């Protein structure tokens, strides 16, 4: 990748030539009703924008009662009359809200999930129970053509023999031992989608984005390093970071709901020309804020995770098992990634190059005063 981060002068994403997907290859038409849950979120608002850009005129945005609509409003404002966007405030824990939202819907993009929660029950409730409610509600109406679950790389155990991680790699078999409520909830969420979709004959597709970043996102992914103990510990080293810029990710999510013949498939979403962890950190320090960091070699980070895990077990959880070998494999093992399936089956190409995406991200970090 080019690390020069040159400004193209437009202030907006530099687009690459993308292979336009033909309307004939879509399972729905522009007037079909589409539901986007989590529509006010970081990715959801871009998904709505992408759908509207593609000419879909019957988009229902489900947002939490407390959601800040600023992002979504940015995506839907200044559209011509007849754009057809409806914003519903509701709670996916309410079956009535799920029924109201999913009525007459042809495609559901399910992005709403419990994020940032340390509690396993909270994460589970806001990811799994909500997903169950939505699937059962939508099954009542026989018009759903596809359910798109936006999952995460967090589900992968990354313990395959090869260093290559693709969609065929196993997911975490014991997410309850991962120390991550998010991992647990996402694995269980995928399981319930598979289970209920089979039971109710709902066609579904799973999208697993890597580390989604872009303007509006905060902080540095733990795949690069952590600052939980004061100084920033750089753990990624020369690992490639499976970044996907938010607009590129949204494009992949949208295509996963539209393209014919991909029912039951899983798609990893990550950009081309991924920076290494070291490259990213260097650029971040140069363009956003300089701070001291200490590199922790992989052998040492593995040993520390192992010791932490053993002590957590030995002490009956006096230290919570936040660091363990499962997490090390999932986040810090040297891994190669591929987006070949995404390109081949969905015709996806990144709208924004990694170079341009990083420039936009760092610029927004500076503007918002966000730091690691």
């Amino acid at each position, binding site marked *: 990748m080019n690390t020069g981060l040159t400004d193209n002068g437009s202030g907006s994403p530099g687009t690459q030539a993308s292979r336009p997907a033909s309307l004939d290859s879509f399972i729905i038409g522009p007037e079909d009703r589409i539901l986007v849950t989590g529509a006010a979120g970081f990715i959801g608002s871009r998904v709505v924008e992408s759908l509207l850009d593609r000419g879909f005129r019957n988009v229902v945005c489900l947002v*939490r*009662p*407390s*959601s800040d609509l600023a992002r979504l409003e940015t995506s839907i404002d200044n559209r011509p009359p007849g754009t057809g966007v409806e914003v519903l405030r509701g*709670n996916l824990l309410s079956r009535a809200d799920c029924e109201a939202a999913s009525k007459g819907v042809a495609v559901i993009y399910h992005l709403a999930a*419990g994020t*940032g*929660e340390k*509690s*396993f*029950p*909270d994460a*589970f*409730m806001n990811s*799994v*129970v909500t997903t*169950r409610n939505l699937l059962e509600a939508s099954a009542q109406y026989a018009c759903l053509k596809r359910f798109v679950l936006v999952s995460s790389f967090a589900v992968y155990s990354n313990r395959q023999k090869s260093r290559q991680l693709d969609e065929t790699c196993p997911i975490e078999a014991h997410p*309850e031992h991962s120390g991550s409520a998010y991992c*647990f909830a996402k694995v*269980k969420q995928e399981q*319930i989608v598979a289970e209920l979709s089979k039971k109710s004959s709902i066609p579904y597709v799973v999208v697993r984005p890597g580390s989604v970043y872009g303007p509006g996102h905060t902080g540095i992914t733990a795949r690069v390093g952590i600052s939980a103990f004061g100084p920033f510990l750089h753990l990624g080293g020369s690992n490639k970071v499976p970044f996907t810029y938010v607009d590129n990710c949204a494009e992949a999510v949208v295509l996963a709901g539209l393209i014919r013949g991909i029912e039951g498939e899983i798609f990893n979403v990550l950009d081309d020309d991924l920076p290494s962890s070291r490259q990213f950190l260097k650029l971040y320090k140069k363009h956003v804020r300089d701070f001291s960091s200490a590199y922790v070699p992989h052998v040492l980070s593995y040993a520390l995770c192992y010791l932490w895990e053993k002590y957590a077990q*030995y*002490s*009956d*959880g*006096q230290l*919570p098992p936040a660091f363990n070998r499962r997490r090390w494999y999932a986040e810090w093992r040297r891994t190669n990634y591929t987006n070949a399936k995404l390109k081949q089956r969905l015709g996806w190409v990144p709208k924004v190059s990694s170079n341009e995406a990083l420039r936009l991200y760092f610029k927004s970090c500076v503007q918002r005063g966000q730091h690691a």
Partner: protein
Amino acid sequence: MLKVGIVGCGKIADAHATQILRIGGCEIVGVCDREPLMARQLFERFPVKAYFSDVADLVTEARPDVIHITTPPESHFDIARFCLDHGCHVYVEKPFTIDTNRAQQLINLAEEKGLKLTAGHNLQFTHAARRLRALVAQGYLGGRPVHMESYYGYDLGNAAYVRALLGDKNHWVRRLPGKLLHNIISHGIARIAEFLTGNDIRVTVQGSTSQLLEGIGENEIVDELRVIISDSNGTTAYFTFSSQIRPLLHEFRIYGPKNGLVLDQDHEVVLRLRGSKFKSYADYFIPPVLFARQYLGELLRNAKLFMTQDFHMDAGMKALIESFYRSIRENAPVPISYREILLTSRIMGSIFDQLRQDILDEPSATRSKANSAFQGESVVIETVCR
């Protein structure tokens, strides 16, 4: 082997299951949640024998000796009464019930059935809290407590619970008589209730919504509370609940006629406050050295607890559960007296009654006046609870 059941499989149930499993001589025979998925996720993550979506099935099929109720507070009374009716001892998470009448009914029923009850005032059983209690029992204060101060800080910033609360106008916390306060302040009030000896309790309340909450359009939640409590034996207490003070204190101070004690819950430290003074300039130099010595002692004590794997985040809950189970096995007194449970409930009820009159039922148009009055003009309402 004591057979244990848990009703309600949300966040706090995780803490209960974890601590129960650290105690010898007991097993979790079943967990229950009316949402089967929630019951199943707890069942899958802990060594639990079965899961249920109906408490009746838990009671009849798993036949637990003791049941922990970790559901939202509105349901505590009905579930606890059902469990007591079916011969189970009951640990009820805080707040015990939504009002004192229901608390009294449960206690009467437990006594009638020869069963044990306790409330989830687990912060009363942390290592530091137990040390303070032991010092008071040894007479360190030099007599009956004269005055107490209890601080309970609450961070509105990052808690997922508060985000859920603020976002959902139908959240169960909003349906409680005391709303947010109702679900939290029992820890701080119980500290005071434990040491009140008189029967007539006078409660004076001032409450307001912080500018932080007002700024995001939240006018129903009182997150700044100041309470003065006194009993008929002349003991007084201040209770402070705040989302805005920094540091967010969790502290209890108790003063007797001779000496005082400070419980710093955030740092698991208990300090002795000497009532007597040193002569002249010595009072400027010797006490800091004595305080330093006390802090060093507390540091070493905490380090020892950590090294011996007895310094878990929920150590207080483990100690309370252990003590409660011991009272069941040995038919010994319960760890938290029923008087303390009722007194905590009465004081909280009095606080919420006053807030309802003074603030909670006040139209939002006049709320700002009440808030500004909080600076020094507000009318103080007193109630006496007997």
